[in-house]
C-alpha cells in the first residue's frame, strides 16, 4: 500500500493562477481531509469528506473547492491564488470507527505552495 499520496510536493504560483492539489489513498478509507499549516502554527481544516459524493467545509474553506467523485481521490482546487494561500497543505484519510476506538489519521507528506 502506498498510503496517502499527494502531488505536487512543491509549486510556485503567480497571483490569480489556478491549480489543483491531488490526493489519493489506497486504504479504502471513508473519511478524507485537507489541512493547511502555516509557519509556527497548527493544522487548519479546509474541507473534509465522509464518503464519495459528500464534502463539507472546515474552518478555513474560502478560496478553495473540493470534490469527491471516488473513494480514493480528494483533489483540492485553488481558483484564484492569493499570497495568503502560501502554505503547506496536508491531505489525510481515516476509517473512523468510534465503536472500535480507532480513527487514526494517515497523512500525506505535504505539498508546499508559494504564491507570488
Amino acid at each position, binding site marked *: 500500500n502506498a498510503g496517502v499520496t499527494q502531488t505536487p510536493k512543491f509549486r510556485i504560483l503567480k497571483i490569480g493562477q489556478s491549480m489543483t492539489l491531488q490526493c489519493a489513498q489506497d486504504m479504502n478509507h*471513508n*473519511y478524507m*481531509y485537507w*489541512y493547511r499549516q502555516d509557519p*509556527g*502554527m*497548527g*493544522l*487548519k*481544516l479546509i474541507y*473534509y*469528506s*465522509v464518503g464519495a459524493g459528500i464534502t*463539507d467545509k*472546515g*474552518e478555513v474553506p474560502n478560496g478553495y473547492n473540493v470534490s469527491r467523485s471516488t473513494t480514493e481521490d480528494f483533489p483540492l482546487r485553488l481558483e484564484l491564488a492569493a499570497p495568503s494561500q502560501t502554505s503547506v497543505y*496536508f491531505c489525510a484519510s*481515516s476509517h*473512523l470507527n*468510534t465503536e472500535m*476506538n*480507532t*480513527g*487514526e*489519521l*494517515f*497523512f*500525506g*507528506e*505535504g505539498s508546499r505552495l508559494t504564491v507570488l
Partner: protein
Amino acid sequence: SQELEQSPQSLIVQEGKNLTINCTSSKTLYGLYWYKQKYGEGLIFLMMLQKGGEEKSHEKITAKLDEKKQQSSLHITASQPSHAGIYLCGADHSGNTGKLIFGQGTTLQVKP
C-alpha cells in the same frame, strides 16, 4: 478563538527531564488525537483517546483524557533529543461526523 488550546506553545527542557503538554477544549471531546511532527516533515500518530479517564502509553509518552472529557495531557518521561518536534492535539467535537480540528501545536526542544 481557538476551539482547542495547547499549552505551552513552546518548551525547552534538558535531556532526562519530564514534561507535560496540555490540550484544552472549549467543547466536549468525542475523540482526542495526539500527533508528533518533525520539522519540515509529515505527522506521526501517537495515540487516540476516547473515553473519559482513559490513559494510553507509547514508549515513554503517556496521554490521558480527563473525566469531563474537555482536556488531555501528554506526559513525556525522561525526555531525549529524539522527542524534539511539534506536538499537535486533534479533536472530534461532534461525535463520529468526521470533522477533526487541531490545536496550534507545542514546539519541544530537548537540550543534550
